[in-house]
């Protein structure tokens, strides 16, 4: 027991203290810092693999007393050990990769320090033994990712970082609320296999709160809005980790909370179908958005959302099916591992291209297969992985989830889900055909004549991941028996449920059939898309969730901020856009693409220019009206109260000071009266 405790403590504390050490060292010598960071991650990787040896049987629980009713508790079980090992592996690859990638960047010490801190927190989440510990490390992880996102310190990065943090904080609040309710209902905060003795209603509320909290991190629609902004602006190794590992924390949390609240036995059809629909919408919308992107990293970010949708779909199936859902959950877990591998690999390869060419727009690249053969090969492997082609890892997990869908039944909405699933697969395939052909095939622009292949330290990271993608694709059965089955057992599935899925055939006729269909759909989408320029479509701003979040935030800001220059800003922006719109008759250009908020513009543009014009006019008018009302309200009553309450800087005159003084005495009097009234009200 003691040995395990020491081992766990080392795994979590080594990167934690290493972070401080690295920060300190970085001011002395860059070389030493790199070696230190590399050795720390590698040592942790070795330790996590040792940890895996202990995780076979019962979960081992260690901890130390923290609060009066709960402890900081870690547990070593098949699930956490697998995910911890995966984390350490990808982290090592990304860290090795980043030495070259960040060579000329500033603030490297901070980057590595927070990379290690996030590493520690990520391991902490996966190894957590109760919800409190999970929450603590989850929040530390959320915060330590912020410096990684804003690493470039430009305006875009700050905007993305702020959005990320606000979303994560809101999610944390929901999560904390859920955990506290869980604590109230069960009396402790340990993981369980289903709460007993409470109404479904409360259980559902708890799960919804926790699901929102974790869903924000996982990028589930409609809480995904931070993700497409944050992942592309981060430096590539960081975005590989964000997409590859850190968002898995969210899915892990969803699985944990689902199984702790409902457990395999008390599964609920309602919850299951909600989760399934959330998953399917997530995967479909995100893949659709991904197809429309020009920026390669942004496209990959949307694909991360889409792949999260697959996983959530699998989890939903598991919840829906209850005891029978072991297969679906196994598929989800498998997909978590797979996605971590191929998505990190893809980010790293795209980053390598960016490092050599300085370009992320796919349409401006091309013909790099001769210049960067190894990178191109690895991209191909990972693309095949994500597209779900046999012999590569994605196939196995996607097939498992698809098979689980078949267990739901036939016809009705299940059929629709099935169709959507295949369409999504096709979209994914199309999107990666697009990526590969645009970047690596075709003719290379002249300025990329002297492009070389990536440097060795970058290639080590990329190739390690690519090899794993391939390896898992060749031996899916081994992986299933050795890693996934003990995990399912740990989550509470009992003998009969497990024995039926001891061996799963993933090459049935049905599977091949659906594979072929989705391949066909993918190729169809790709050809039609490129032929008719559908990939350049943009939707109106209000179409996206992001717009509403932004409007809401702006509204709150208006309400609170006295000098709202924003009104002018907003109106002038709208008029400027109309002018631009009239000036440019052709296709939309980069100037108009700022995330999904300026969406569908061109579609309307092609069809009816007037609609667009009127729409913008109306919008401008309404916004200006609303702002006028808010402003007049504000500058009248609210501003006065606010100013007198907050002792603002504007009051310079002595008379005003006296007025304030009188006001404060008046407040005392007022409060006194209120208190007297309240005390006499009942008692």
């Amino acid at each position, binding site marked *: 027991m003691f040995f395990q405790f020491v081992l766990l403590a080392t795994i979590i504390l080594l990167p934690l203290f290493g972070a401080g050490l690295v920060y300190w060292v970085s001011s002395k010598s860059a070389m030493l810092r790199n070696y230190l960071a590399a050795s720390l991650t590698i040592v942790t990787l070795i330790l996590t693999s040792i940890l895996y040896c202990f995780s076979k049987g019962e979960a081992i629980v260690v901890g130390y*007393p*923290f*609060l*009066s009713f709960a402890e900081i508790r870690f547990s070593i079980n098949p699930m956490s050990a697998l995910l911890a090992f995966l984390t350490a592996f990808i982290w090592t690859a990304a860290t090795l990769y980043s030495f070259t990638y960040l060579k000329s960047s500033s603030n490297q010490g901070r980057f590595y320090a927070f990379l290690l801190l996030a590493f520690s927190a990520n391991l902490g989440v996966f190894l957590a033994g109760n919800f409190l510990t999970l*929450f*603590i*490390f989850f*929040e*530390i992880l959320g*915060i330590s990712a912020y*410096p990684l996102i*804003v690493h470039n*310190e430009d305006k875009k990065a*700050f905007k993305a*970082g*702020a959005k990320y*943090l*606000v979303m994560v*904080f*809101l999610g944390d*609040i929901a999560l*904390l*609320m859920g955990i*506290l*309710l869980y*604590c*109230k209902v069960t009396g402790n905060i340990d993981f369980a296999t289903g709460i007993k003795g409470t109404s479904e209603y409360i259980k559902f509320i708890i799960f919804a709160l926790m699901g929102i909290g974790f869903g924000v991190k996982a990028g589930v629609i409609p809480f995904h809005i931070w993700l497409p902004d944050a992942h592309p602006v981060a430096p590539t190794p960081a975005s590989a980790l964000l997409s590859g590992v850190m968002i898995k924390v969210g899915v892990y949390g969803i699985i944990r909370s689902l199984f702790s609240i409902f457990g395999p036995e008390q599964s609920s059809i309602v919850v299951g179908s909600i989760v399934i629909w959330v998953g399917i919408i997530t995967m479909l919308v995100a893949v659709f958005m991904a197809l429309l992107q020009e920026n390669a990293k942004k496209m990959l970010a949307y694909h991360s959302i889409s792949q999260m949708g697959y996983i959530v779909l699998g989890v939903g199936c598991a919840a829906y099916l209850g005891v029978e859902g072991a297969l679906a959950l196994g598929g989800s877990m498998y997909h978590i591992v797979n996605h971590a591998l191929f998505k990190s690999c893809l980010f790293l390869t795209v980053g390598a291209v960016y490092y050599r060419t300085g370009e992320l727009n796919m349409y401006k690249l091309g013909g790099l297969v001769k210049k960067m053969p190894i990178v191109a090969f690895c991209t191909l492997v990972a693309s095949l992985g994500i597209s779900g082609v046999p012999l590569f890892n994605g196939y196995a997990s996607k097939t498992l989830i698809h098979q689980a869908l078949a267990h739901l039944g036939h016809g009705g909405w299940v059929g629709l889900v099935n169709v959507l699933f295949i369409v999504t697969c096709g979209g994914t395939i199309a999107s990666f055909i697009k990526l590969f052909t645009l970047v690596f095939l075709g003719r290379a622009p002249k300025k990329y004549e002297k492009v070389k292949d990536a440097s060795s330290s970058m290639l080590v990271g990329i190739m390690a991941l690519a090899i794993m993608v391939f390896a898992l694709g060749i031996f899916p059965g081994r992986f299933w028996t050795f890693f996934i089955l003990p995990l399912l057992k740990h989550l509470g599935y009992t003998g009969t449920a497990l024995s039926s899925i001891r061996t799963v055939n993933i090459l049935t006729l049905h599977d091949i059939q659906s594979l072929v269909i989705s391949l066909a759909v993918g190729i169809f989408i790709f050809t039609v898309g490129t032929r008719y320029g559908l990939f350049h479509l943009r939707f109106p701003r209000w179409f996206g969730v992001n717009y509403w979040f932004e409007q809401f935030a702006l509204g709150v800001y208006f309400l*609170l*901020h*006295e000098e709202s220059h924003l009104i002018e800003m907003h109106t002038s922006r709208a008029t400027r856009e109309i002018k631009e719109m009239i000036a440019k008759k052709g296709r939309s250009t980069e100037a108009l693409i700022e995330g999904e908020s300026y969406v569908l513009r061109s579609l309307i543009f092609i069809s009816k220019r007037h609609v667009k014009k009127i729409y913008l006019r109306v919008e401008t008018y309404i916004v200006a009206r609303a702002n006028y009302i808010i402003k007049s309200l504000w500058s009248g009553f609210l501003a006065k109260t606010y100013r*007198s*309450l*907050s*002792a603002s*800087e504007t009051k310079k005159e002595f008379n005003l*000071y006296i007025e*304030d*003084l009188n*006001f*404060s*005495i008046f*407040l*005392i009097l*007022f*409060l*006194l009266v*209120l*208190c*007297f009234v*309240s*005390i006499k*009200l*009942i*008692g």
Partner: protein
Amino acid sequence: MSFVLHLPVLMVAVPIAVAVLISVLLTFKRNIAFVLSVLTMIFCLISSLFLMVKVITEGSFVYYVSDWPPPWGIEIFIDRLSVYMLLLIAIVGLISIIYSELYIKKVLDHQKIPFYYMLVLFLIGSIVGFVISGDIFNMFIFFEILSLSSYSLVAISGDREALRAGFRYLVMGIVSSLFILLGLGFIYSVTGTLNFTQIALRVKELSDLTVIQTGALLLIVAFIIEAAIFPLHVWLPKAHGKAPAPVSALLSGLVIGIGVFGMIKVVYYILPGVYPVSFVVFFRGLISVGIILGAIFALFENDLKILLAQSSISQIGFAAIGVFFFSYSGLMGSMLQLLNHAFAKSALFLGAGAVIYKTGFRNLDEMKGIGKRMPITMGFFAIGLASIASIPMTCGFVSKYYLCLAAIKQGLWGSVGAILLGGFLSLLYCLRIISCIFFEKPDSKVEVKEAPLKMLLPLGVLAFLTIFFGVFPRAAFVLIEPGVKEILGFLR
């Protein structure tokens, strides 16, 4: 171990005596003030440690000053919670005095320096006296010393803003102390005594509670003014923002916390169980509004110290709301929040002071990228911010966790919302500061270096304590858990 019994009262007497001694010695030697005050605070720290050992092993005790028993003489009442407060006072006091040396030399005229130390010692002595007092009139006297020294410490720099802030604080403070006196009169008239335990006993025999409720109400309103709870926080932002940094640390970290402790004394020790439900609900609502509004004020403030002061309003609201939950978790959260606020907010003010000392910058706009120039100072500052923003592994998280749990357990959804929203807004303003300090590109070409070691060390200790109690909150539980259970017993 019998000398330990005398330590609480010596913790009052020694700082006051040393302060007086400084004034007498002033004619012979000018520089002695700092050394003497540090020695005094070390004495206070050591004696509070002794007291801690004493109450942990033997439980709470009473001490009759002048050996006269309660209804006639003055009783000093030392339980675990007051020892806990004493420890906080000793630590924060020692740290801010050590920090003061360089800062004060730069900020104040050299003639004022010894008086500054004297006033700080008076402040410390009177806070101790207030915390351990078991008699309302005695509490009033020490409250007066406490307030007088705080007013003058706020106004000590003598510039116009400071004087205005000081005068406003003074007017409100005097009204609050008069409320205490009036409330004490009401309570005395029906119970015939001013001793806590005796009042609590007599109140149970009373049939009509009107007079007692009026007295309790006046006392609570007085402490609301002192603790700067909405809407009577109006004096706080300027007073804490314009005072010298170590003073702001003391005032924000301790004095307003003492206001909350005074409230605990009224609600649990003196007059437990005389409050109608409507009153309690009203108070919870008031404090909830304060939590949110304070954070919003902080969100739009530009002057760093005033921002921190605004956030104190919100943070002290957290401590106060726990008092009115009347439950174990609520009080635990309240006490932990007092600890968090004492350490973290002091660290923040000291950090802001270090920036002012080095650069003279007060506004957040000017401080862009200063974290890159003075990473260690601002690193400690960031730890303080993390605790205010209740990020896990700092004590701020533990306290807010308990508060939220208490509110949820009682089903008070409004309070839950206020706590969570307040936490969220605190996160936002902390994020604003952090992104400004650490991530923006520095504007000015002025070479800024790390703060001197004498300022860095106190900051480091506070940051360490913040983290320590976040990772091992059990260390604080030794005192507060039995203490909280004890005072909850008074309610029955």
